[in-house]
């Protein structure tokens, strides 16, 4: 192992009961640290409970890119006693604990590292709700890390409405002063982590995905509430006016997808979002999008299943479900971004590809990136994203055929009401006009027409990142992964002494066989890393390339990978074959 720990990385956990503000401390810290010029990754861990239970935010920051948060804790902000007990297995000999109160045992155990911070008392004094006590902790951490209080004020200003801002600033100031007066100095050599200015911002994959779609011309977003897909719905709903889109929340996922098919029929660009259970309900209609050649973008944000599963945690167990979803055979595109920046591109690409090829596109993410925050940059300038409309026409002959046979399988598309042209869409097998057919020859012609589009889609491989490579491109040791696992893998890479090539599969369907073979066929050792039980990507790679990946690191305890633990597992596998 290269390093036992990263000396330029600090991890802060803020934990407490649901509703007491512990999680919002994480988000505000992320804003503060990014304003200071640091790189951050912040994840949230919460049960499916509105009040009570235990939830926490965990943030790692550094002066180099942080791809994923770490579990070993440098600073713990404990809103209640339970928090200290639940997290103590991740303490080091240097961990500092900020809490309202400590037991005698804790004081004798942690000594000077147990810092009594009167969060509740200050909040009560200001007649502020308990949720505001987190601002006391923010001020205290600001002092501990020798950060600028002005930047903290800016961060609070970004979050709070005017009526709540003043009291939170007062409380933060009190937290800052409290530690200053006690002359508590962070024992680590924090000076070594100097921020670098990068003009980055705090990004969240649900929001960047939404922004990507909007820049590619989204008109409507339709969704039924489901964790962890709802952050997309909330983000787009909150800003629907400024984004120029309409939001609809119908009675069920069945209604969602069929409403969306109706919207797309009129020529409006529409996307829907759900998680595994909701998408399972949509299956018949998903197949219809394939049969009817209806452009539709679907955000599929995974959570642990089967059935209701573990709703507020993370998983990568729906890959093969998505690739095989919908009855019958029809082409689709499945893209899995690995972070917030890639989610932005996937939102834009997904909508464009759906319209260019007149088919359903799935962007496959999960709770881990869907609800985490990270520093990054996306191009918010609209002129940089092309709105690819595909073969839309506004005039046609009266013998217009919605499903006209063409060389590339893509038929010119006109919309009802645009002109006198009749547009017929059909869930039954149909002829070029869209009229039902049961003729054996017609069926073959139409099925071949739909699959002809796949040949065209594969031309996208030349201009899109179907796979991404990191690390030592010449290495014959390859680690392969997809989706949100990217973060933990690239963070784990920092601990590895051996040179390794890291292969991220971004396009899962159609599968870029040539590119994957290129990177895997000469490998001496391949390790597959996934957040599921079955090694679904490994199965897919074997199906597509014939390469049988023997070494796998699979995690299905519904928690994201910890980079340090993952690095240890990778090293064990690497050494096992030496």
């Amino acid at each position, binding site marked *: 192992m290269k390093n036992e720990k990263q000396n330029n990385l600090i991890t802060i956990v803020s934990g407490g009961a649901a509703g007491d503000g512990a999680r919002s401390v994480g988000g505000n810290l992320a804003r503060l640290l990014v304003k200071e010029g640091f790189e951050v990754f912040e994840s949230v861990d919460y049960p499916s409970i509105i009040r009570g239970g235990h939830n926490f935010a965990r943030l790692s920051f550094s002066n180099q890119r942080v791809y994923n948060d770490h579990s070993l804790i440098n600073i713990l902000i404990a809103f209640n006693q339970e928090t200290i007990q639940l997290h103590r297995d991740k303490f080091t000999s240097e961990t500092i604990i900020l809490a309202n109160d400590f037991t005698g045992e804790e004081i004798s155990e942690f000594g000077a590292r147990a810092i009594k911070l009167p969060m509740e008392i200050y909040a009560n004094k200001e007649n502020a709700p308990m949720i505001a006590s987190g601002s006391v902790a923010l001020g205290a951490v600001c002092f501990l890390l020798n950060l600028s209080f002005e930047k903290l004020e800016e961060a609070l200003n970004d979050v709070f409405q005017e009526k709540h801002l003043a009291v939170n600033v007062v409380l933060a100031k009190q937290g800052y002063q409290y530690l200053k007066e006690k002359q508590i100095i962070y024992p680590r050599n924090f000076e070594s982590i100097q921020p670098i200015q990068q003009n980055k911002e705090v990004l969240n994959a649900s929001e960047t995905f939404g922004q990507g779609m909007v820049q590619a011309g989204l*008109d*409507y977003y339709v969704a039924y509430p489901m964790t962890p897909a709802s952050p997309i719905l909330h983000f787009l709903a909150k800003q629907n006016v400024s984004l120029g889109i*309409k939001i*609809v929340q*119908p*009675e*069920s996922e*069945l*209604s*969602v997808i*069929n*409403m*969306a*098919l*109706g*919207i*797309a*029929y*009129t*020529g*409006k660009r*529409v996307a829907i979002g759900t998680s595994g259970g909701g998408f399972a309900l949509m299956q*018949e*209609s998903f197949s*219809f999008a394939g049969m009817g050649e209806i452009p539709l973008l679907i955000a599929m944000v995974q959570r642990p299943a089967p059935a209701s599963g573990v709703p507020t945690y993370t998983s990568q167990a729906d890959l093969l479900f998505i690739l095989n979803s919908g009855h019958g055979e029809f082409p689709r595109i499945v893209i899995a971004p690995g972070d917030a920046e890639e989610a932005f591109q996937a939102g834009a690409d997904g909508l464009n590809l759906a319209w260019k090829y007149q088919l359903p596109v799935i962007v496959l993410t999960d709770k881990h990136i869907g609800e985490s925050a990270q520093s990054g940059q996306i191009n918010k300038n609209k002129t940089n994203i092309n709105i690819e409309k595909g073969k839309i026409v506004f005039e046609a002959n*009266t013998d217009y055929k919605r499903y006209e046979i063409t060389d590339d399988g893509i038929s010119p598309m006109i*919309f*009802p*009401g645009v*002109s*006198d042209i*009749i*547009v*017929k*869409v*059909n*869930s*039954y097998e149909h002829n070029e*006009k*869209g*009229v*039902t057919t049961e003729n054996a020859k017609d069926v073959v012609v139409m099925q071949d027409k739909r699959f002809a589009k796949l040949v065209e889609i594969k031309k996208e491989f030349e201009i899109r990142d179907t796979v991404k490579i990191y690390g030592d491109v010449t290495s014959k040791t390859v680690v392969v992964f997809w989706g949100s696992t990217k973060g933990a893998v690239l963070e784990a890479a920092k601990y590895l002494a051996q040179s390794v090539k890291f292969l991220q599969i971004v396009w899962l369907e159609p599968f870029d066989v040539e590119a994957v073979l290129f990177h895997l066929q000469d490998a001496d050792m391949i390790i597959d890393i996934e957040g599921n039980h079955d090694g679904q990507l490994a199965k897919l790679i074997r199906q597509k390339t014939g390469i049988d990946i023997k070494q796998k690191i699979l995690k299905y305890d519904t928690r994201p990978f910890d980079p340090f633990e993952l690095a240890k597992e990778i090293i064990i596998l690497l050494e096992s074959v030496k």
Partner: protein
Amino acid sequence: MNFNSSTQAKITWCPGCTNSAILIAFRQAVSELVEEQKVELKNVVILSGIGCHGKITDYVNFNSFTSLHGRLVPTMTGVKIGNPSLSVFGFSGDGDTFDEGVAHLAHAARRNSDINLFIHNNQLFALTTGQATALSPKGFKGRSTPEGNLEEPFNPLLFVLGAGASFVARTYALDIPGTKDIMKKAAEHKGFSFVEIVQPCITFFDTREALKDKRYFLDETYPTNNLSIALEKVQEQGEKIPFGIFYENQRPSFEELLHNGLK
């Protein structure tokens, strides 16, 4: 574009099927609506579910969308949302809407989506060769209920009134002028229009004789704007069954609110 033009698709309904009467009534309704400049022909979109009724989209040369079983109603709302200038007509069966898609029906009525839903109520699944639906009478003997249907049927008009439909009517498939008139009224109504078309299935459940002298029309004295009266009228259990418009009121449609906002 011509409202009488056909798609050349071969009609595969049973010879003498009452669906043809519904198709004729609809062609006439559209023809008159276009002549009266109430509807633009290019803006007419017809949708169907799955069942014998669903073949109608193949036979008429209008914009059409043949949906999935039970999923017609949200698709119709989607079309109206996407382009509010379209006139959206949906044809569905009692099985399609009251079995598979009943939740969608209730919600479309509640949100007052500006769509026109025509239910071909033949009181059974016909395309699947004769099983009971949610509108089949108790005791109905079908292929899945040889000893008689155990379940009580919905009263379809009571159901949609309860859910908040703003236009509720009943017509008889073989009464082509009456059906045409009600289809036109439904089209002119802004909001969710529900029309039950009582339809004898000549192959599996022929009610032509039973209905012969059992129909009467709501006369001009009937107040169509009174929900309490409508709720009673649709439950009337007499010698004869009432036909006509039971209820009609005006409130903003869902699509209006979506595009223009509350207020």
